[in-house]
């Protein structure tokens, strides 16, 4: 009996030990935990943060940077971060954050406003353009993150495929119909080639919503998810249905990837590492960063890409002004409201987003550089002639309605897109289902505008 008791007590002590504070290492120095994501084909952020850690630690003796990677895609990263953020004890001090998630965390009080620190950081006024500064602005007007990347979106096309299909190069589609016509020509002339690839299923998460649906919706006349003047979410409507109808046409006419590939989490790897280099794909609706898959910094470079690939803007539905459409998002480095060492944490942000590290990240990932000095540096665009084009798309770009409810709205959009992709619903039915689900997603029918 004594032994049982002793054993139980031992267990209790062990359990009690779980609650100890992991923030402070035994040496007595300070530790900052930085959460970020990494994938086998996407090692660039890890490299950039590794450099930043070295620079920071040599300049700040007594502070250790603990880099905590999350292996997996964006969706896995959002989940891991949200779970860690549930408790101040497990929340990382700093994290790589997708801008569309920022407002939900601001509403929950998980993020620290940076304005007081930014005011004393000369780079903030000198190097970050005003449009970029908005990336992580909360509803209270405060800044909750320093941009690491920004982006635009457009069409990529394979010139060999176009030449073989008898399509003109350079290609400049003026309407959605021009895009569909080109895809139909490829399908007719080149069996075995995927004419047009886009993300349109739930497994691709926000990529489906933003690279896929919003690139269409914001190109329709007056198409938007959120009415800024009435401060309400738009429940479907003709523009919404038209955007879904485009996706429907792609899959019903078999102009897109096979269903199994449309539902494959690795579709982007197939597009960029296999199909484009093998001339098995004609057109892809994707982000500015796509070229990173082919550059010398990639895990699988494609040296001929500059000759073989073309890029052009996604046209508006019927060529309405301004003739092209783009969406912009990006990622920031954010600071937890729970961190005990705010000044030290902010100092790490300034190191991580300095010119050198920002350059490493932008060149590696192909994302557009938020800093003026990086954008102006010839090294930045040296291996990538597409950079200027995608940077200039900023003139026609749109931003997501970055409200707390947006991630839930996005989930409903993915639901509608997937139904149209598989053909389980017509565009009209899917739009109606979206309109019906919207009040639940945004927190009440009073926040919804009937189309």
């Amino acid at each position, binding site marked *: 009996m004594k032994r*049982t008791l002793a054993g*139980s007590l031992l267990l209790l002590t062990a359990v009690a030990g779980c609650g100890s504070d992991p923030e402070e290492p035994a040496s007595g120095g300070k530790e900052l935990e930085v959460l970020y994501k990494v994938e086998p084909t996407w090692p660039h952020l890890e490299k950039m943060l590794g450099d930043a850690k070295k620079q920071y630690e040599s300049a700040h003796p007594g502070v250790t940077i603990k880099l905590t990677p999350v292996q997996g895609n964006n969706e896995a990263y959002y*989940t891991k971060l949200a779970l860690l953020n549930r408790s101040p004890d497990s929340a990382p001090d700093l994290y790589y954050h997708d801008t569309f998630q920022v407002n939900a965390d601001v509403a929950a009080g998980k993020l620290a406003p940076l304005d007081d620190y930014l005011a004393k950081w000369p780079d903030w006024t000198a190097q970050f353009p005003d449009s970029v500064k908005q990336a992580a602005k909360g509803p209270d007007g405060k800044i909750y993150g320093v941009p690491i990347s920004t982006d635009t979106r457009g069409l990529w096309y394979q010139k060999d495929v176009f030449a073989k299909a008898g399509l003109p190069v350079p290609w400049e589609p003026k309407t959605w119909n021009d895009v569909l016509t080109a895809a139909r020509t490829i399908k007719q002339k080149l069996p075995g080639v995927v004419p047009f690839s886009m993300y349109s299923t*739930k497994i691709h998460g926000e990529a489906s919503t933003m690279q896929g649906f919003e690139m269409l919706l914001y190109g329709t006349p007056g198409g938007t998810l959120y009415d800024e003047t009435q401060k309400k979410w738009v429940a479907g409507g003709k523009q919404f249905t038209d955007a879904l109808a485009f996706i429907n046409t792609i899959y019903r006419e078999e102009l897109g990837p096979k269903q*199994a590939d449309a539902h494959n989490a690795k579709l982007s790897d197939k597009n960029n590492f296999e199909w484009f280099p093998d001339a098995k794909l004609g057109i892809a609706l994707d982000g500015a960063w796509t070229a990173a898959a082919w550059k010398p910094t990639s895990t699988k470079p494609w040296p001929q890409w500059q000759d073989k690939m073309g890029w052009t803007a996604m046209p508006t539905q019927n060529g309405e002004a301004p003739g092209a459409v783009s969406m912009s998002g990006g990622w920031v480095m954010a600071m937890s409201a729970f961190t005990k060492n705010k000044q030290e944490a902010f100092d790490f942000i300034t190191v991580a987003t300095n010119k050198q590290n920002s350059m490493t990240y932008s060149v590696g990932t192909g994302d557009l550089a938020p800093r003026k000095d990086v954008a102006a540096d010839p090294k930045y665009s040296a291996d990538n002639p597409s950079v200027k084009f995608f940077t200039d798309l900023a003139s026609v770009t749109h931003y997501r309605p970055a409200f707390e409810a947006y991630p839930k709205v996005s989930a409903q959009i993915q639901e509608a897109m997937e139904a149209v992709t598989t053909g389980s619903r017509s565009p009209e039915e899917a739009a109606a289902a979206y309109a019906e689900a919207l009040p639940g997603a945004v927190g009440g029918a009073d926040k919804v505008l009937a189309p």
Partner: protein
Amino acid sequence: MTVTAAPHPPVTSPPVRGSARRGVLRWLLPLGPALVLLVLFLAGPILWSVYIAFTNEALTGSASVDSRFVGLANFVKLFGDPNFLNSFLLTFVFVIGSAVIGQNTLGLVIALLQRGRGRVTRGVVNGVVIAAWVVPEVVAAACWFSFLAEEGTLNTVLGISQEWLYTAPMLAVILANIWRGTAFSMLVYSAALSEVPADLLESAAVDGAGPGRRLLHITLPLIRRSIMANLMLITLQTLASFGLIYALTGGGPGTASQTTPLYMYEQAFRYFEIGYGSAIALVLLVIGALFSLVYLRLIKVEEA
């Protein structure tokens, strides 16, 4: 999801009334720490998840810091949700197909065929079947993925191009689960069959009963309680099965193989609706309990 209650130690009433308190202390003291741990880590989370199921708790956003009590709203939404009903149907197909029919029958057949075989045969067959059971779910899923993928083993052998995981996702996960889980049923039935007296079977054979009649009228009735116990265990295991399906099809394409545990995961951890996810978990718990009740009832009927 399903939790079988820890067996309570038999409490014998103390012989003398005055020492009742001492008697209680005698079993409570050594049991205390374990009880505290059980309440803390088993009952606590269950009660918390029951409570959460009646709130709008979320993983992020303002609802994650001040969640509200929403009454039965989550359950009302649940039973009107076509995706939930779809997942429920698929779970049913999955449990019946892979556990009740697949694992159960295959396990019994293998155990029957092994009777009276040499040690080497038994060793090899046991080894192979149990190996599938020993590998982690994710590894099993990876094996089946490479077997069924477009450039996978099956297509290469058959010389065809067929996206099995897209065209027949439920069949794929059911087969994978049978492959992985049969060992358990086989072990249960091997043990049960060794209890069937050989002389009974022999005398039946002498009386002219063929192998079919011997199985139907002697073996099966003698092992019926093992059958019920096995059915209950594998039903509960399969009902909560998550990793295998998640790694193999992710519930897709679309929602074609999204069983209730996967739907629950999607709502709770992908769309951050922890309250709604907990409501689904609670419903799943009730379904598991119902299954157990039916099986327990059947065993009782048999005993009476």
